[in-house]
């Protein structure tokens, strides 16, 4: 017989840890991107050092999930909850790993001593990814299915902007051959950002799985976006003005 109370407490402890892990991953990405923007080596080092704590927390959460399954033998939605968390935890940890890689690239750019102009589209990708992760966490906390779908849809937009960004960087390479070492790092960073976006999409998909019990790929089409949801006006503004790069002042 499953001890409901104990089980619920353990499960909510896992949820708390998950939110914590997600916040840490979000901080890591934000800090890494800030380090890149400001050429801040100290901040980049901070990100790299912070990854150990994230790895530890990931292992703890996984072990706690396994322990909970073994001891309480949950069924139905409880089992789905734990399973989704076990998958989510990996994705969040991977996002933090990409943040670490971005910090490494930033250090490489700083070490190269080359001053490169970061294109506006790059800031846009950066902004979309951080927003996506932010909203994915919101969706996790508030069990918001619509928001999870919204996050999944954002991924396509990032892919689109990312393609244009790559072309732009290659063009800059041809024009300023001296900056190639730094620009290569910028390409890597773009790639890491896109991978982080992939993992964020996974996070959203696992949230959908947890809430509905279906895989997103099984749904032929994502449900229509609820336009009455005005909780994310800033994202809509991003769509309207794709060239705007400075969004920090909004909100």
């Amino acid at each position: 017989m499953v001890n409901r109370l104990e089980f619920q407490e353990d499960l909510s402890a896992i949820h708390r840890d998950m939110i914590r892990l997600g916040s840490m991953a979000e901080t890591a990405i934000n800090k890494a991107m800030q380090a890149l923007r400001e050429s801040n080596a100290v901040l980049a080092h901070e990100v790299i050092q912070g990854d150990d704590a994230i790895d530890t927390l990931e292992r703890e959460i996984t072990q706690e999930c396994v322990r909970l399954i073994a001891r309480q033998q949950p069924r139905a939605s409880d089992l789905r909850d734990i399973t989704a968390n076990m998958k989510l935890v990996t994705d969040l940890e991977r996002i933090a790993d990409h943040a670490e890689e971005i910090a490494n690239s930033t250090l490489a750019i700083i070490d190269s001593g080359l001053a490169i102009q970061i294109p506006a589209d790059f800031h846009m990708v950066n902004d979309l990814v951080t927003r996506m992760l932010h909203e994915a966490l919101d969706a996790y906390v508030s069990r918001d299915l619509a928001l999870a779908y919204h996050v999944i849809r954002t991924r396509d937009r990032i892919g689109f902007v990312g393609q244009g960004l790559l072309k732009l960087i290659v063009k800059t390479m041809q024009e300023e051959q001296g900056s190639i070492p730094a620009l290569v790092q910028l390409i890597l960073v773009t790639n890491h950002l896109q991978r982080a976006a992939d993992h964020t999409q996974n996070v959203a998909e696992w949230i959908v799985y947890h809430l509905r019990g279906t895989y997103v790929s099984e749904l032929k089409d994502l449900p229509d976006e609820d336009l009455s949801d005005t909780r994310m006006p800033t994202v809509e503004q991003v769509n309207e003005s794709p060239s705007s790069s400075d969004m920090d002042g909004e909100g």
Partner: protein
Amino acid sequence: MRKKITLIVIIVLVIAILATSIMAVSEARKMNRTTTRNHVIAITNWMTTEFSQTIDLSKIAKRLVSQYVARDIPLRVTLIKTSGDVIFDSEAEDLESHLMRPEVQKVLKSGQPAEEIRYSKTLGYDLYYYAARITDSDLIVRIAYPLSLEDDTVRSVRTHVLLIGLISILLMGGTLAFAIHKITQPIETITESFESLASGIAATRIEEVHQVYPEMRRLSVSYNRMADTLEEQQSSLRQKQSFLDALVEGLSSPIVVVDDKADVIFINERGMQTFRRFIDPVKYPYPLFLLTHDDKISERAIEIMSGQTQERELVRTLTTSEGMRSYHLTLSPLYDHRVAILFHDRTAEEEAARLRSDFVANVTHELRTPLTSIRGMIDTLRSGRVMKEEQTERFLQLMDVESERLERLVSDLLVLSDIEQNAVDLNEDYFDLTELANEVMTQLEPYATEQEISLKLSDSKRLRISASRDHVKQLLMNLIDNGIKYNRPGGTVTVSWSAFDTHVKTFADRRNISRLTFSVEDNGIGIPEADQSRIFERFYRIDRSRSQEPKGTGLGLAIVKHIALLYNGEVSVRSRLGIGTTIYASLIIPVENQV
């Protein structure tokens, strides 16, 4: 309750009536039997006495029986010999020996009369037998009197008793129901009032005068008093609540309340915006970490709750929707293991503090540079080294230049602080702007000639303006001086102005308020685009490395900006490298056209 009372009373009543009727019936029966017995004994005695006078007892018996039968009483008389032979029976003939009948046996044994009550199978009811021996003979008279006769009386008694009982039950029940209703009615009214009070509906009041019973009246009075108090408290609570709500929601600083696990349980609108988390914490509690991404705050909150620390202030730099901001946090413990956290954004304060200290550092630096060179030259002159006459002369000249620069710097600083401290006097006298411009240009003419610059006043409207003449003069002076300083030899500085109605009715007397814009154009070296936004900052100089020997104090345009701001105006710059610069400064002041 009402039903219960009624039921109990009716049960008691029924039991009482039953008991009464049973007792009445048994009393009636007992009385009846006594009567019957006396009657039978009387008959028997009469017969035994008759025997002595008359011989044929059976005849007497027959007459007796016929008399009784006529009255519907089936009396039966039997004459039995002591041997048991029946010599006469009023109902049957040739009966068997009655020797063994109990009453007969009793009479034979004791010689005294005996009685017996027996059920007669043939007749179907109880019979009362009385037997007595006739004195001095061998005859026994036995009389059987039907007891069923007496039952009629009993039955009628029973019927009456039951009838009366039923009527009294009905009467009692009715009265009782009415009485109970009278008692429970006020209780019900009070109960209903309590119920509406408990369910939060506007509490009703009980009308005390309608209460008959003093106990109920007292209860009603206290109920009304309680409802009054509750309503008062509720409305005062609601007032306080709305006041707090408005305060918390209207506050421009985020407020977060956390529980003992550092989970957010309340956040105001401003907090949601600042941390861009629009999750209802009541529905979905989440760790504070999700908002702040900062462990220190959560740890401190838990420490305060567990009483480990009294330190309630904390300064943290947090990532918000407005970028990195510096916050001064105040953690206040609430009741029941909760902590309210107020986030005070002090980024602007820190920025102001930084600017202030920058300014002080700049002033110090600017003052020290000329002083250092003056001290150096004095030391050289004092060292007593033999110097040529013209060398000494040059040193003195340089010292003169440096001290002049110091003087200018100090006077500029004074002007700046004067502008910053002074408010505008709205009722300044009108003066002729063209005249002032000419005055300034005449003053600067020697310096311009020296720099090979020509000054030009374009054909601007002749205006009379109301503002501090000193301020406007300082503004024009600095603008033209700036144009001369950063010009090329052979260049020109052109001064012009224009005025437009603003329709601003800020002044009570509705004078003609205009936006007066000065523009001072030079065709000098121009300002790089990156520097254009900063030239109005104090001590900002373009390309510090190359202007080792700064021409001005670095405060000229800052003073222009401050004068413009003083008059609600603004400054702007348009410049192209190598072509020239135009600086605009506008003031919003009363302007009159020169007649």
